[in-house]
């Protein structure tokens, strides 16, 4: 993905010794241990997942071949469709808030990140990336509780009617979970975008200013195109964490109330280990993997095009 032109050139310019049988054997010896672990704990389980997805199996008794039934269930059962839909709704919160807010913040604070103030900013904004997501879930469960800070704030500004147990509310639980994810990802995205902006040639901004460009135009025609790569990175990261979310939902809501915040990751866990529907869980797992790949592919293509 990131191999530079120089690196590619190097790959092609091969000294003769590299193709020799001896060197090929050395290569295998260097790669084999990594490959063994990867095969044993990723490739084989993935193949097993695929195999299980065609079975009707409770994990203990006899497994029966079930054809495509599990996949048909995943793609037609209204409950499972809602769960997949929830994951995409979370993409809205996990991705759009950090990227849009991050862009806005980054373009305003561009050039103000030097010195100790910048270090402090970086340190604090990275805190959510350093702590376990579980801890973020606990902290925010308390923020969203009946007597938590969110309601305290609402009451302080006279919006007592709005106060509620956010994570137990059928309408608001999913957005609340989304806010937790946005909080976790906002700092990282902001810092990536800030770093991206510092790489943009400052003379572009000066030229624009001389031409009498308004800040909005600077943003639209210089910042935004210059940040293409960084935006793609942020979108990729946040989409993956939204679609594959597990920790936050497990801690904050367990998927409830009802299934309003249930996501595929948690549903796989529930189906496989609580409901003993290993086949259906595996089909959902394969579908989830494909959904992640399909969602990421266009972003990667978009980022690569310009290079």
């Amino acid at each position: 993905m990131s191999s530079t032109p120089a690196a590619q050139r190097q790959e092609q310019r091969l000294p003769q010794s590299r193709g020799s049988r001896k060197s090929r054997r050395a290569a295998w010896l260097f790669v084999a241990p990594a490959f063994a672990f990867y095969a044993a704990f990723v490739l084989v389980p993935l193949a097993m997942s695929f195999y299980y997805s065609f079975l009707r199996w409770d994990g203990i008794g006899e497994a029966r071949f079930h054809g495509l039934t599990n996949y048909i269930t995943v793609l037609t059962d209204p409950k499972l469709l809602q769960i997949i839909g929830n994951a995409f709704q979370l993409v809205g919160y996990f991705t759009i808030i950090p990227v849009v807010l991050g862009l806005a913040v980054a373009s305003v604070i561009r050039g103000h990140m030097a010195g100790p103030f910048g270090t402090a900013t970086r340190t604090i904004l990275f805190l959510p990336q350093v702590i376990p997501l579980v801890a973020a879930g606990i902290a925010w469960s308390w923020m969203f509780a009946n007597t938590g800070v969110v309601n305290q704030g609402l009451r302080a500004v006279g919006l007592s009617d709005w106060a509620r147990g956010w994570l137990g509310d059928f309408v608001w639980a999913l957005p609340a979970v989304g806010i937790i994810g946005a909080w976790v990802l906002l700092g990282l995205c902001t810092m990536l975008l800030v770093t991206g902006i510092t790489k943009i040639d400052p003379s572009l901004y000066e030229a624009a200013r001389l031409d009498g460009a308004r800040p909005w135009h600077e943003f639209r025609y210089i910042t935004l195109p210059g940040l293409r790569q960084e935006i793609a990175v942020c979108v990729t990261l946040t989409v993956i964490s939204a679609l594959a979310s597990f920790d936050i939902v497990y801690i904050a809501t367990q998927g409830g109330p009802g299934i309003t915040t249930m996501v595929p990751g948690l549903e796989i866990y529930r189906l496989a280990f609580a409901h003993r529907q290993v086949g259906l869980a595996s089909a959902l797992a394969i579908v989830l993997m494909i959904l992640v790949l399909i969602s990421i592919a266009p972003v990667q293509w978009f980022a690569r095009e310009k290079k």
Partner: protein
Amino acid sequence: MTLPRPNTLVARGLIIILMILTLLPFLSMLSAALAPQGTYPNGLQWPADPQWGNFVRAFEVAKMDQLLISSGLIVLGVVPISVLLATMAGYGLAKLTTNKYKWLYLIFVFGLTLPFEAVITPLYYEVRAMGLLNTRFAIILPLIGLYMPFGVYWMRAHFLNVPHDLTEAAQLDGATRWREFWYVQVPLARPAIMSLTILLFLWTWNQFLLPVVLVQDPMQRTMAGALGAFQGQWGTDIPLLCAGALLILTPTIIIFLMFQRQFVAALMQGAVKG
């Protein structure tokens, strides 16, 4: 840059708002953690009589000392082996193979976006068949495998940028591949190895799904996994829960603050590459 530009105040103000938003959940946990035991604390307020003893109680209830050892053991089991294997494979793929073997690299890269949930069910049966369920190896061994796509990708990208002349020089001196790897390549790769170590440490320490599924006993889990169990047990005792969560966070945050610069650099590069 020294003279404040007109919009410096706006920029600083915005950064400060962002910092407050980031810190608010931590402060809210702290204020709850200091509320009297058994009460239901109220939002963000400094308690009249801060109960620092809650932290002592949480330390005992969570068996923090044992948790630290357990997480430490898991990190020690995962990180050095993962880094070593990924470095070797990265070197092998970047320096010893031709384009003809690109497929091998692509097989590794294929795992980069794989959600752990996609393999957790078969991993459970696999680990059970190995007789390792409920041991720390149930977390350690799969994690090494699951980190390989990123590790190999990371180290290969580094080795691709090492000039090839260096290898040739070492070979002219009669060094074997193995010696060249250890005495020439690894020392040069130190920054890349350091970043990879930091990232894998964080991801292991914070790993939640694998411990929850593969290890019943919270004392054999990672910090994050144990925190999940702690919440399950004390979820209704808000002061204790918040005190425990803060305690469990503290070691990571201390290490983060000590190596702040390296962590930030690693996280940024990790994001860009991943």
